[in-house]
């Protein structure tokens, strides 16, 4: 069966109550096209595991980019080391998040980048959990099992095994083998391994044999659906120079 499909077709797998994992560390490597498709899918009560949940600064959404915080109305829980950003989280989204959290409609579980990656990798490996030395005695140790091993203190962290992983890569072949570019790699390879079902958005799809086997970072076995971003979309490979121009224009207007 072919793995190539549209974002709408791929999203049919997502149900109410699912745990989703996705990458976010700025725009690069974050599956902005799939985020929009997830909103269109209209499912609710999702748990989102994400390294950062950082709203786009003012000016970007107006130019067609997807702010990852558009997912918030569909979430019941966020597992993330970093929500908002210094000076970027607008008062509107901050009030919105606070209100949801205060009313108990949104649970926020904090973590660290390292622990989040370990929990995903533990999930991928089928482990029952991990003992982490990072976080001992801190706010993230609250109500977690503590244990001393060979004189060192640890806290117990559960594995994460997301139902669906939403990732982004530079190129895929039709078998789902993936290559990345620069710092866009992010948490994408880890999310692909940990998730029960992985959907990738790519700039380009090529035939088997066109990608150098030595250069493949995520082997196709970890990828269930490949979505090529349509040329007309702002995130497409074709419109990348334009996307870069939008970024720099907004940056220049903001003065940095």
């Amino acid at each position: 069966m072919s793995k190539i499909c549209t974002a709408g077709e791929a999203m049919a797998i997502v149900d109410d109550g699912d745990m989703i994992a996705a990458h976010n560390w700025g725009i690069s490597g974050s599956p902005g096209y799939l985020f929009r498709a997830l909103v269109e899918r209209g499912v609710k009560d999702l748990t989102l595991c994400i390294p950062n949940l950082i709203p786009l600064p003012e000016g970007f959404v107006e130019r067609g980019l997807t702010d990852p915080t558009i997912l918030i109305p569909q979430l019941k829980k966020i597992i993330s080391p970093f929500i908002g950003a210094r000076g970027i989280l607008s008062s509107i989204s901050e009030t919105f998040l606070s209100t949801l959290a205060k009313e108990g409609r949104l649970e926020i579980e904090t973590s660290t980048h390292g622990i989040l990656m370990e929990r995903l990798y533990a999930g991928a490996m089928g482990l029952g959990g991990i003992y982490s030395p990072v976080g001992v005695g801190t706010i993230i140790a609250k109500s977690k099992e503590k244990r001393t091993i060979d004189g060192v203190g640890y806290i117990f962290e559960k594995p994460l095994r997301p139902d669906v992983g939403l990732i982004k890569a530079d190129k895929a072949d039709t078998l789902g083998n993936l290559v990345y570019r620069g710092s866009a790699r992010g948490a994408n390879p880890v999310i692909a391994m940990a998730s029960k079902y992985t959907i990738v958005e790519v700039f380009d799809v090529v035939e088997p044999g066109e990608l150098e086997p030595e250069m493949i970072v995520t082997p196709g076995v970890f990828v269930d659906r490949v979505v090529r971003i349509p040329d007309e979309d702002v995130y497409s490979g074709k419109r990348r120079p334009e996307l870069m121009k939008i970024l720099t224009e907004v940056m220049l207007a903001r003065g940095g």
Partner: protein
Amino acid sequence: MKDRLTEELLAMRAAQEIRPGDYCNVGVGLPQLCASHVPTGAIVQAENGTLGYGPLVGLDNVDEMDLDFIDAGGSFFTTAPGMAFFDILTSFVMIRSGRLKSFLGGLQVSEKGDLAIHSLSSVDKFPQIGGSMDLAWGAKRLIVLMTHNTKDGVSKVVKKLTLPVSARACVDLIITDLAVIEVTSSGLMLKEYAPGWTPHEVQAQTDAQLILANNVKEIEF
């Protein structure tokens, strides 16, 4: 009132701790300023997945910006010979296996070397821990850069933390706009003080008791 070190001078002094051959991570904020003073032969890591990147691209050079070449703080960098890209899992293996000299900002450091990076209000609101606890715990050598006192004049170098702890007994060296202080098993050792200041005056600005190093001297650049 006497002058304290500017942020730029503080960063320059901190960068003296980086030697050729070091792998290091400079945290977002004040430590980031060290990046432009890294000596040749030292390699900088960005925790979102790059080792050994080139100089950052300024706003006056937007044509050279590339969407996929960004550091952990979202600044665009240029490529450099010998650079490497990797995923975030690999990145945090580097960070937690004691291979990097880490430079972090801080709100408080105790005499035991405990570090507080986040305020109570920010902890209550939303998690913004990021990779800071991993960096603090796993560093080969942890250097904390901060102003010596808060805006209200309260010492950030303290006997005991009053803010939420990020990692215990992790700090090796504190560099402030007044002093360079080493965390030793017998306490905090004042090694250098800002030009124009005396060790006695630095102590007066400090909550924790400082031990004077035998060769205590003025900070040099």
